[in-house]
């Protein structure tokens, strides 16, 4: 279990306990958090689960795969700390993680 804080674009915060083994995307979708669409259900095919990872957590969330990188390359409002949340697996190490959501996923 890890506590993950999802911050909507308008600043609304949702602190959720997400089970280890799920992805950061699944934690959001299963808790009905607005702002993560996840159209492809985690297949790394849609880029509608885009999040910004808060600075100090970037190293802990691991490296992007080539596929994720090239999907993100074409998403909107991408920043250096952009990730696809379906590609971040939740572990105890991520307890306290903060991710911010973009204004829209399209």
């Amino acid at each position: 279990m890890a506590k993950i804080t999802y911050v909507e674009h308008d600043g609304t915060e949702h602190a959720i306990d997400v089970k280890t083994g799920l992805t950061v995307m699944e934690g959001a979708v299963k808790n009905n958090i607005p702002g993560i669409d996840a159209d492809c259900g985690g297949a790394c095919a849609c880029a509608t689960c885009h999040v910004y990872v808060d600075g100090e957590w970037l190293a802990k969330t691991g490296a992007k795969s080539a596929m994720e990188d090239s999907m993100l390359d074409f998403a909107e409002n991408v920043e250096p700390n952009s990730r696809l949340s379906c590609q971040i697996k939740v572990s105890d190490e991520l307890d306290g993680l903060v991710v911010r959501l973009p204004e829209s996923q399209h």
Partner: protein
Amino acid sequence: MSHSDTHVVILGAGHAGGTAAALLRQYGHEGPITLVGEEPIPPYQRPPLSKAWLKGEADAESLALKPLEFYAEHGIDFRPNTRATKLAREAKQVTLSTGEVLTYDFLIIATGARAIKLPVEGAHLDGLLELRTAADAEILKATIGPGKRLAVIGGGYIGLEAAASGRALGAEVVVIEREPRLLARVACEELSTFFLDYHRRHDVTFELGATVAGFEGENGRVTGVKLADGRVIACDAALIGVGAAPNDEIAKEAGLETARGIVVDLEARTADRSIFAIGDVAHRPMPIYDRMFRMESVPNALEQAKQAASAIVGRAPPPGEVPWQWSDQYDLKLQIAGYAFDVDRILLRGDPANAKFAVFHLKGDQIQSVEAINSPPEFMMGKLLIANRKPVDLDKLADPSVSMKEVAA
């Protein structure tokens, strides 16, 4: 505008219906929501049933859209194992298989589609499977394994995904397809050839241009597929994946217009202002192609769930989307955007030999659709170019050394 006593009844607890229920709450609908589904479990995702889940890489929990508690916690009255049997529009009532009658203010029909049956001799035998529901997938998974021989009837995406997963589980797989090539309805020749070669390299065998005349069995269980030319292909199980038909009977009987599905507008609303139809069961307008058609894809189910939920709560409609879908087979990621309507030429970018290429379907210098294999830039940029109807420089598009960003510039 929805009020706190506005009752929304959703028929069909699948990807579209489940999403609509959750979105209504997300968008602030306070009135009662009843979600009626004939399956025993809460709404789940179907795509993994032929892919990650079938291969054992995802569990049942990850299939579910939301955990079961979600529905009670959000005041959604979820009714599993319940079928809607009749719709009375004047009284705004639906009758359920339990005998109960529900009165609605808004009705969302999200009953999906069902697998088409093959009306041939022996079609009643055990071991003849379809792949539409989690229950179907359980049976398929329990049936295939090392040493078992699976016949897949129909070389479309679901059939080919099942073939790839079957190989991963150690089964022998033969694909039987009526057309002379794979994916004949949806893809171009180059793609058909590419998939044929790729599956053959994984030891899938093929019978192309072969019509199924019937099934042979012993003790009530299938033992072979009989082809029209008299040959019999031995198998322990046969998966029939020859397409799906919309579950639109309830709407048709109630006098709603149906074409290849329930006819709706861009709000996913039928001519009856209080009734919506979303997902695989809907026949919907697709403005970028200036026509109406029925789509079977998750993004379509989600887009229409957003349309209906927005209309019910009085929220601005979501922006229109380019239809798209994906498929995973072996280490291939296939992403498809758009539909190949009125296409006059095809352009190949990249090299099928290294399994990284895209096929663009063009009408003049306008991209109508793209099928991208292991090529996210081509998919993402192609989708954008389809959306904004921008003419493209075909020489640049054909040259993989020119980046997609430059092609679109």
